[in-house]
């Protein structure tokens, strides 16, 4: 469904050039929940921007249902990490969620119904008339998720969506996302630096290296569903998968050619 092949992205040119992504190849199938993990500064946000059509890759292709991306496609919706900047403070919750629907649905009643459904899905039915800044961080991110859902995308891209909320809220939002996915069947692609989160949520975890990024490996998550914050995380298999991903992330990337490469390896021994 979504295919990324040999994606490469370099910012700037000449001496100033920074290679954010070296070589990314991955596919996301319909209905899948894929998590992408990588260390901080691994070009994860750059990759997501390429996937949702905001950035043009330097080379390589992103195709959606066989069609190469040229600008943001209507099949993809995004949930950004920074909800306070992604939600418009001058619009109410209802207006924010309904914002992208104007160009899709002509009837106002239809739009209102879709907004109501989306708000219900994230448990914010009675907050439609509030402004985002009147809500807590976790509620604001639920508004952003509702906006993504109301857009009725085939794929929902989530860029470290729970990185700015406290641990309890984070767990609640993870379960909310799993429930939404079960209810709607929407394909999810979530980027995170939290290994537990990736293993807990995903069908498949794609592990990215530090910058310039390559795909280190893909880990199939064969944990049973529905998942549960307590019982799933107690499974020996959860610990195994978690260790597998962690080992991948901590292993130095093979393309690493920094001058002190050898001394680093020496230290580890």
């Amino acid at each position: 469904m979504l295919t990324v092949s040999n994606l490469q992205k370099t910012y700037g040119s000449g001496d100033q050039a920074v290679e954010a992504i070296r070589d990314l190849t991955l596919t996301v199938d319909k209905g899948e929940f894929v998590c992408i993990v990588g260390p901080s500064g691994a070009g994860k946000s750059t990759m997501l921007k390429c996937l949702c059509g905001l950035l043009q890759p330097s080379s390589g292709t992103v195709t959606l249902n066989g069609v190469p991306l040229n600008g943001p496609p209507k099949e993809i919706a995004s949930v950004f990490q920074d909800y306070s900047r992604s939600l418009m403070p001058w619009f109410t919750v209802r207006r924010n969620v309904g914002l992208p629907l104007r160009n899709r649905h002509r009837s106002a009643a239809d739009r209102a119904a879709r907004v109501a459904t989306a708000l219900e899905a994230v448990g914010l039915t009675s907050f439609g008339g509030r402004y985002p800044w009147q809500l807590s961080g976790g509620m604001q991110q639920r508004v952003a998720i509702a906006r993504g859902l109301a857009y009725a995308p085939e794929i929902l891209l989530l860029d470290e969506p729970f990185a700015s909320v406290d641990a309890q809220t984070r767990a609640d939002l993870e379960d909310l996302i799993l429930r939404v996915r079960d209810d709607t069947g929407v394909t999810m692609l979530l980027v995170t630096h939290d290994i537990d989160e990736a293993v807990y949520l995903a069908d498949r975890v794609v592990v990215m290296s530090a910058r310039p990024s390559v795909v280190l490996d893909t880990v199939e998550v064969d944990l049973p569903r529905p998942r549960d914050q307590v019982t799933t995380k107690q499974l020996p298999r959860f610990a195994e998968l978690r260790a597998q991903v962690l080992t991948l992330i901590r292993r130095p990337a093979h393309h690493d050619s920094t001058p002190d490469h050898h001394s680093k390896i020496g230290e580890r021994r």
Partner: protein
Amino acid sequence: MRLTMPLPVLTTAALLGTGEALARSGALPAEIPPVSEIAGWLWTNLATVDLWMAVSQTLTHWAVALVLGVTVGTLVGAAMASVPVVNELLLGTVEFFRPIPVVVYLPIMLLLLGARPAVVILLAAVAALWPMLLQTLYGVRDIDPVTRDTARVFGLTTPQRLAWVTAPSILPYVFTGLRIASTITLLVAIAMELIGAVAGLGNTLATYASNGLYAATYGVIVIAGLLGVALNAVFERLERRALRWHPSHRTQNA
């Protein structure tokens, strides 16, 4: 004891009282009359047509100049902020003309057009243009990239982005520009009327002063001051209404 009177009122009362006492004692020259005489003049003349005529002429100059200056300033500022070529083309020119006080153009304008309201309006509009241009420029540059990306990802059209993202984003800057521009426009309009002898509060002031009607002169000054305060209050009110959502105006939080 609770302080029931606001402190600014005390300051004003002290100033008025001192002025009155000094003028009555003869310590001040005749050109500075006692406060009570100024108040008396205002009281007897507030109902006269002449005074309100002058006020309405000045307000007309102010309003037309403000609309002109704000419109041109906003458009040019937005163009400079969003089109790099326009910025390159205009930045030097703007930086050169901006610090020049508009009064220097007055002699030429009077020669070209004569002592007409158009001269006052044109120069006041130029004065209003600069703060508006700069505020719009900064405002558009300061639009949050995440908000911009959000609008693009959700497929908003260009007019929708302008109305729902760009306009609200720059609104705080626009209101600051408006308030500054409004004050400057009033100042310049009155000054140009005064120097260029164009009908309005400025010209009325000059006439009274040159005829030795000092209480009347100060009466007009008081009116000009009140006008400035009133206009500023109107814009602040509008700003509070339009920017209820902005962090500096929010009244309730989670």
